[in-house]
């Protein structure tokens, strides 16, 4: 090293600054806690918190639910993006992402990070407040609706009496967001795209809402008299029991109408005007980049999820499995409600030995075998070990959930997500298969076919209800 080498860098490096910051927080926190403990303020503070919390439990619960819902949307969107990439790839005889993370699972996360890291700029000439708020409005319109969807018995964000009405009101804000985006970008193509998208979405809102009237009529007529038929939790409860209780069997036409209208509402192929990239540029979001565009992107995927979730809630039995599990549990010697503390090991009988002996190897073989078949570079030992770890992870997660909530909640959540993501997969498969419908054909279809069909459905349902109530009971 010559004497004329660069002088040693002084000052704290970035890593050093982070560590020092964390240390400062720890030291300050320790000092604070010590002081509180010593002076007796600590216990007073704790008491006050508990009292206030108990007094305002509803508000706290709502805040917790809203936070949970918001936090849920991002991972859900990531999962849906990954599903889309992989399923469309398989249908295209391709592989899809398989480098970032195992089986490319981190690809959507990386896409999100990429979108975050882009330059955030405001083009010249735009209407700045409207331009800035448009993504937020669109995103919130999608996210707010998750508050009323029942994920499991006892687990909805908020049980509103007018849940369905609130759902449609909140998701209708999405149109406002689209128009704001199209108008405020100082760009003819954005304006055209925004107007087209708004026209399409508004046209399909009517069949969407009218399609649900049949379900509401049935819920009001044959459900319990004290709850409002718009209460989504109650609608799900009405479909308890066996599969044929689901409203899909009582309202097949409404299900079809609702699903088609939902495809258009979400802006999915074959009705995807918001992302018709082989037509006029990029539609209403031409002038957006970075995280602003990311918000639109997320909003669309969350929209897909909530519309699937609503379809499941209204027509496909919500979180109900569709079979009565009491006999199955009885076979194993347990009864519902299945609390962890209520399982008496003695009552299990021979299953006490069989379950720990058989379940771990079976799960390990299943996971390990799948991994070995799919991952060509992994030997059998590596696959089995990783399979064992994954199986343990899964079982641990399930049991934790069971312990925190209840067995019904666990089952309900699994069933609900299974059905919702199944419908999301259906949306994705439709995207891979169909070309786009032209906008005038699309509006034609909505106004001349779907809406009359929905009205017809309402008439038939109402007529059937009257006949059944008057003459058959």
């Amino acid at each position, binding site marked *: 090293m010559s004497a004329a080498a660069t002088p040693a860098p002084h000052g704290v490096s970035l890593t050093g600054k982070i560590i020092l910051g964390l240390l400062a927080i720890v030291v300050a926190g320790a000092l604070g806690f010590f002081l509180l403990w010593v002076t007796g303020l600590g216990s007073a503070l704790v008491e006050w918190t508990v009292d206030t919390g108990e007094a305002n439990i509803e508000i706290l619960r709502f805040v917790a639910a809203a936070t949970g819902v918001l936090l849920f949307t991002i991972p859900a969107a990531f999962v849906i993006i990954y599903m889309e990439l992989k399923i*469309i790839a398989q*249908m*295209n*005889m*391709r592989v899809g992402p398989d480098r970032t993370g195992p089986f490319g699972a981190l690809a959507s996360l990386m896409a999100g990070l990429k979108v975050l890291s882009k330059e955030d700029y405001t083009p010249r*000439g735009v209407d700045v407040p409207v331009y800035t708020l448009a993504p937020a409005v669109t995103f919130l319109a999608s996210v707010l609706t998750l508050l009323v969807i029942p994920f499991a018995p006892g687990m909805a964000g908020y049980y509103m009496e007018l849940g369905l009405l609130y759902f449609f009101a909140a998701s209708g804000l999405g149109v406002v967001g689209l128009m704001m985006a199209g108008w405020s970008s*100082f760009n*003819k*193509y954005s304006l*055209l795209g925004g107007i*087209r998208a708004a026209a399409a979405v508004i046209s399909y809102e009517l069949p969407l809402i009218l399609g649900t009237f049949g379900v509401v009529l049935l819920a009001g007529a044959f459900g319990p008299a004290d709850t409002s038929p718009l209460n989504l939790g109650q609608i799900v409860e009405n479909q308890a029991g066996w599969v044929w209780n689901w409203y899909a069997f009582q309202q097949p036409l409404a299900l079809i109408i609702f699903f088609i209208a939902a495809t258009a509402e979400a802006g999915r*192929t*074959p009705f*995807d005007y918001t992302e*018709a*990239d*082989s*037509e*006029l*540029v990029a539609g209403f979001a031409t002038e957006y980049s970075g995280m602003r565009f990311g918000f639109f992107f997320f909003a669309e995927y969350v929209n897909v999820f909530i519309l699937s979730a609503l379809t499941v809630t209204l027509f496909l039995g919500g979180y109900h499995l569709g079979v009565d599990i009491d006999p199955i549990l009885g076979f194993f010697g347990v009864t519902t409600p299945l609390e962890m503390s209520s399982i008496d090991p003695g009552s299990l009988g021979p299953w006490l030995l069989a379950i720990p002996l058989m379940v771990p190897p079976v799960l390990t073989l299943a996971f390990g075998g799948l991994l070995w078949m799919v991952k060509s570079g992994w030997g059998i030992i590596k696959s089995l070990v990783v399979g064992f770890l994954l199986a343990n992870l899964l079982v641990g997660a399930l049991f934790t959930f069971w312990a925190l909530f209840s067995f019904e909640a666990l089952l309900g959540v699994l069933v609900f997500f299974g059905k919702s993501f199944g419908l999301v997969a259906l949306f994705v498969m439709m*995207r*891979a*298969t*169909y*070309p*786009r*419908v*032209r*906008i*005038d*054909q699309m509006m034609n279809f909505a106004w001349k076919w779907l809406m009359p069909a929905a009205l017809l459905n309402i008439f038939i349902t109402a007529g059937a209800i009257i006949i059944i109530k008057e003459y058959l009971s």
Partner: protein
Amino acid sequence: MTADREQIRSLDDPEVMVQTPATIYDAIPPLTPRTEREAEFYELGDGEMFVNLGPQHPSTHGVLRVVLKIDGEKIVDLDPVMGYLHRGVEKICEYGDWHHAISNTDPLEYAASMFSEALPVLSAERLLDLEVPRRADYIRVLAWELNRISSHALFIGWLALDLGGLTPILYGFAERDEIVEMLAALTGQKLLFNYMRIGGVNGDVNHEFLSRLGDWMGRAAVRINDQATLMNENEIFVNRTKGLGVVDREMALQYHMSGPPLRATGVPYDVRRAHPYSVYPELEFDIPVRTDGDSYARYLLHIDEIKQSLRIIDQVLHQMPDGPVMAKLPRLLRIPPNRAFAAIESPRGQYAAYAVSDGSDQPFRFRIHDPSFFNLQAVGPLTRGELLADIMAIMASLDPIMGGIDK
């Protein structure tokens, strides 16, 4: 060098911003019209606006700018602006050898470049009145038909992609992948083959090519059927293409459309039958013709042509004689002064060359007549009055390749 560079000032400079009128954001800057038609086009009626289907666009099959005058969703008029891919191929051909012309014309129809290579080759052979060995002729036909199938598979995929369907193009690319791999075994290249030579072809077929070809032929019919069935009966696709861009016989002849757009109107004009060249007179194949003239008919015609090409390949493989693959030619090829017009049937239509020689080894004039150029001219009359979304369907169904249009 003598001109001084103007001080380039940024638009963010406040002085500049004040002086710069908002019209700089217009898609079409106000210009002084050079011709009557331009003046007519650039006058805006009530409620109309100009929109650029700009040179960068996912579905203009290359770099093509179309200035649209639209009234809401309806297209009132359009003006295609070309030249973004103009490479001066005709001029460059005049400055090189007759053999250089083969490499120069390769990138003209880059999706199926055996056809564009064939132009200098066939016209030089006509000028010289040269006899090509029969084996070379058969190999040429094989290469042409394979290129035709790969280009049509790509066309089907492009048409679907422009309409929003994501899957058929990947099926098309799977087909194209296999064909391109076998042609790479034959020629050493995957896209711009540089395979045709004046007097024959560059090299004989080899074992790898034949084995890949045999493998592929076994599956080809089924897979093309798969790709076709995905779209033939698809309600959405049919609704978007049926009755759209209807070309009638008169218009097709007047605009000199050729290839599938012409045969879809009922005119059975195929250069392989009208002006037979190479060994096509000895091969049995039909010319598929449809009478509807709309985009859907053109799409179905492409599928019919793929089936006919498979038939031709089958016959060629059975009938190929032995022999040399290249005629004897002097090293320095001087062609006596003469004129010749050579036409071939490419996947897009009639590809022709008018060659004038002057006794030296350089072409004197090498004119390339590209079918996409004339097919694209019809986009104007066909699209007036249609909706914005239809311009894609119409343009994609005419199968333009900008390399040939812009030369």
